[in-house]
């Protein structure tokens, strides 16, 4: 390794479309390559939906915003959502070529723990390097990173320090892969309830939103400040019930007014090196996730 070889000509960053032009506009074109993008949300907000959608849109040619690429999907939640993936692949016309089966270009691998992920990295590297195809691997998704750290670590300083070290090791390797093979890396994370204050010089506010709210809870991303330092960009998906109207003054058995509610879903950009503070609304349908212009 020669230090003079570390001098490189900075290249523009290729992006992978999310499959929706409204979301792409919010994200500055899509998910960037050579970068680790994190999607933070509570369960049921659409993290996995968005990931599955990316596995399919990555296969699109660059003229349609894709990477003409295969993807690697590492999942720590079981079972793998294959039925939904089938449904999404049929709903969108992903390739005009009739003999292109999108599922052939998605590689799935289960993960059981953080150590398992670390052990799998060298295998992943040689897999990506030696994968000869018209659709090289250009997208790696880890869904979710939080689940890998749930059980093994206790809440004492020593374990937390050990856990932190693992974050940096994992992130270091993911970023190396991303840089070496010009890949987009997407990692999903969960939320926990916020207890600490997040104001002032000792505050733990991270990103453009003063506070993150979802389903009426005040939350923050899991895995703490250490992991937040390991990702390049962080997106937050939120979900809230919004009252639309009353049902003609009708009441239920307890005497409470009945309401028409709808679920409002939003995507927020918490931090990214290339995009300002933005957010947009989206819906989840049979066809997938679509941004909504208000």
């Amino acid at each position, binding site marked *: *390794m020669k*230090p*003079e070889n*570390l*001098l*490189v*000509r*900075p*290249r*523009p*960053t290729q992006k992978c479309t999310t499959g929706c032009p409204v979301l792409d506009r919010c994200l*500055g074109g899509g998910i*960037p390559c*050579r*970068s*680790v993008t994190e999607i933070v949300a509570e369960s049921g907000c659409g993290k996995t939906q968005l990931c599955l959608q990316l596995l399919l849109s990555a296969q699109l040619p660059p003229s349609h915003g894709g990477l003409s690429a295969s993807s690697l999907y590492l999942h720590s939640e079981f079972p793998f959502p294959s039925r939904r993936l089938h449904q999404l692949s049929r709903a969108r016309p992903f390739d005009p070529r009739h003999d292109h089966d999108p599922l052939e270009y998605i590689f799935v691998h289960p993960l059981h723990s953080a150590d398992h992920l670390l052990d799998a990295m060298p295998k992943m590297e040689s897999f990506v390097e030696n994968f000869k195809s018209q659709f090289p691997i250009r997208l790696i998704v880890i869904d979710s990173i939080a689940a890998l750290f749930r059980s093994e670590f206790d809440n004492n*300083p020593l374990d937390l320090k*050990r856990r*932190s*070290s693992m974050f*940096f*090791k994992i992130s*270091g390797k993911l*970023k*190396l892969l*991303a*840089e*070496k093979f010009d890949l987009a890396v997407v990692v999903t994370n969960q939320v926990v309830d916020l207890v*600490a204050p*997040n*104001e*002032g*010089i*000792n*505050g*733990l*506010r*991270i*990103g*453009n939103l*003063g506070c993150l709210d979802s389903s009426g809870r005040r939350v923050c991303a899991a895995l703490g*400040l*250490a992991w*937040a*330092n390991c*990702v*390049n960009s*962080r997106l937050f998906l939120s979900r809230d019930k919004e009252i639309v109207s009353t049902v003609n003054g009708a009441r239920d058995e307890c005497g409470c007014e009945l309401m028409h509610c709808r679920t409002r879903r939003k995507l927020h950009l*918490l*931090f990214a*090196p*290339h995009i*300002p503070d933005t957010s947009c609304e989206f819906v989840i349908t049979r066809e997938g996730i679509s941004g909504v212009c208000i």
Partner: protein
Amino acid sequence: MEVGRLPISAALKGKLVSAGYTSLSLLSSLSPSHLARGAQTAWDMLHEEELLTRITTSSVDIDNILGGGISCRDVTEIGGVPGIGKTQLGIQLAVNVQLPIHCGGLGGKAIYIDTEGSFMVERVLQIAEACSNDMSATNTVSQDVHAGKVGMQPRDFLENILYFRVCSYTEQIALINYLDKFISEHRDVKIVIIDSITFHFRQDFDMALRTRLLGGMALKLMKLAKKFCLAVVLLNQVTTKYAEGSFQLTLALGDSWSHACTNRIILYWNGNERYAYIDKSPSLRSASAPYAVTAKGIRNSVSNCKRIKLM
């Protein structure tokens, strides 16, 4: 009598002619103080020397608490939570160092060492374009056009940033060791930015080894700053430590690292505003100033209740 035939030095002749005095008759009616109108006082000379060693951050408020800008011959550490604007400030400085001296730069090049993959060309071009537009808006353009120089375009700013991508701690150390040789061959480099100095050192490390490696790096960087009279800016992450009964934010890499830098700036959130705080400096007093990250880059905050707080 022509000035050219006066028994004075060629330099003096040149100065007189360029000021418009081509013959003795034009000079005879002037007093000495009138002729010396363009001379400098010692105060002006000191101020000019200060300008030669400072790089603007593009936020007047931050420049003010820094005594004019980021200083050369010093190692400045800048730390803060993710998303507060460390990389944005790093890129702004890499662009600003290229500006001419009267615009707050040093007319030099930048070395940008990226250890995390946060450097995005599209963002650099966006910031450079804003800089280029701001320069055209001032009336200095006419002077440059006279001198045959074309205004700097965003692509030119990008060309003058020498970009290194580092993916492991061994690469980082090898590169820092190599910088002396590299900068000797690229004397127009006036700033070295490392984004971030920390990332590759937070994996599991034998602590004694890490302290030794970091100490060696710090020493080399300080020597570079002094030897080549350039600014060294190290972007750092934050971590929490338990002190005095509560959790506090502190810069990563431990207490022994805190001696490595001359100046230390902490970026933090206060309400919905971003603030920069001078945590350590041999010559500046502790103060904090608000700033904003805009599409154009780092700028002054436009909040109407902002104030610079002296500690």
